[in-house]
């Protein structure tokens, strides 16, 4: 697998050291091991929660994915501000990669959220403030990816995406506020609030492991997507060069 880059895309000509011969990065291997460990520990070695029952085990995958989604979109916003300031395409590639991975994590968050809501709150979907915010997050960043797809010119694509990346981040507090105000007007029948810290240690330790392993998974996926962004730009430059 030879990797060649044109001169003006300053990417390492030699594949980066973290990459084994077959192209799978160490990060990805560590991530898979960590997530597997989390699964085993959560399924076999963590006590069941009395009130919610086994469904409570979703606690180890839902909020952890949600945290990564918000982390990803924080990266998009920072990279967007960076791009508009420094006009360095590397930052735009960071934003592009974080957005795509972020949408994947947001989708998982929504699905696991409703899978948890059904047994606990009795419905697949509730307009719970956090879940609704995650839903809107999903809409904003799918819009971000569609916008990227709709612009041919590489520089304009970077500029427009940066503007949307920043405005998207500005919007989050407003959505949270208005949804929260809306929700408190029609309080949901809250049976057991999920993920309250008053949990026994084993559960907290499993949650910590899940938290770390999903973050590592994010880093692995992000690095791979960033590598893809570099090689795609190199290919475009070569085809247009």
């Amino acid at each position, binding site marked *: 697998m030879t990797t060649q880059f*044109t001169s*003006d895309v300053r990417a390492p000509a030699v594949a980066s050291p973290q990459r084994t011969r077959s192209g799978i990065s160490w990060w990805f291997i560590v991530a898979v091991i960590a997530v597997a460990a989390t699964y085993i520990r959560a399924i076999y070695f963590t006590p069941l929660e009395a009130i919610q029952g086994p469904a409570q085990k979703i606690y180890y995958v839902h909020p952890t994915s949600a945290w990564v989604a918000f982390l990803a979109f924080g990266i998009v916003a920072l990279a967007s501000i960076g791009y508009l300031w420094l006009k360095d395409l590397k930052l735009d590639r960071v934003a592009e990669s974080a957005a795509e991975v972020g949408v994947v994590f947001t989708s998982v968050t929504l699905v696991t959220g409703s899978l948890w809501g059904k047994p606990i709150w009795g419905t697949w979907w509730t307009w719970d403030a956090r879940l609704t915010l995650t839903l809107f997050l999903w809409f904003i960043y799918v819009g971000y990816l569609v916008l990227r797809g709709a612009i041919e*010119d*590489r*520089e304009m694509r970077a500029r427009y995406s940066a503007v949307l990346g920043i405005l998207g981040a500005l919007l989050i507090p407003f959505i949270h506020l208005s949804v929260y105000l809306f929700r408190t007007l029609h309080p949901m029948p809250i049976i057991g609030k999920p993920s309250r810290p008053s949990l026994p240690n084993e559960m907290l330790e499993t949650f910590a492991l899940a938290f770390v392993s999903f973050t590592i998974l994010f880093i692995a996926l992000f690095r791979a997507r960033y590598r893809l962004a570099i090689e795609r730009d190199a290919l*475009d*430059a*070569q085809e*247009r*060069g």
Partner: protein
Amino acid sequence: MTGAVERVSVASAGEPEVEARGLTRTFGGRRAVDGVDLSLAAGDCLALFGPNGAGKTTLLRMLAGLLKPSAGTARIGGVTLPGGEEVRAVVGLISHASMLYGALTARENVEFAARLHGVGDARRTALRMLERMRVLDRADTPVRSLSRGLQQRVSIARAMVHSPRVVLLDEPFSGLDAAGAAALTNALVELRTHGATLVLVTHNLGEGLEMASHAAVMQAGRFVRFEPCDELDTAAYAATYRELVTRGP
């Protein structure tokens, strides 16, 4: 030609009105303009020739302050690019597109441009400009119902209503009939006598050389030739130009 141009400011003899050093603009990997050097004093007129895709329009848009240079420097009327409002106040651009609002009349378009440039008594100046471009009789018809040639004249009037010190023309004669071409030539000559500097992009060698004080040929983003007109033999120039253009970049 009645009515003198009010705001006349002739730049000091020494300092060039339009100057570029290694001016470059890249789109993605491609260098549309690749290190152009240029120096024109007030009253000069550069005829810029070259095949399609040579980067002429990109160069013009950079000098007009519409495109930021990727590298190199350029100064227009003493202001370094991208100069923002200062540069755009003294530059007039005539491009392939008319830059007019089809729904508005010729008068409204030119008056709007005049007000946008802060021209005193925009209404009268606009009318005088339309009159000089011999399109006054159609001043109150929506621009989209005018012929291509008449639209071109209104576009020229729009671009020169604020009596710019630097006028950038991208094939302005295309689509003009004899009367239109004469009106444009007179207006340009008058601007030059008042110290304006012109850059005229054209494919018509005769038209260009007749008007110009300097001539340049651009190819693949670079000036392959740049010299004052009085030093060059028109016939020889035409021959080498045809050969350059047919061989392509």
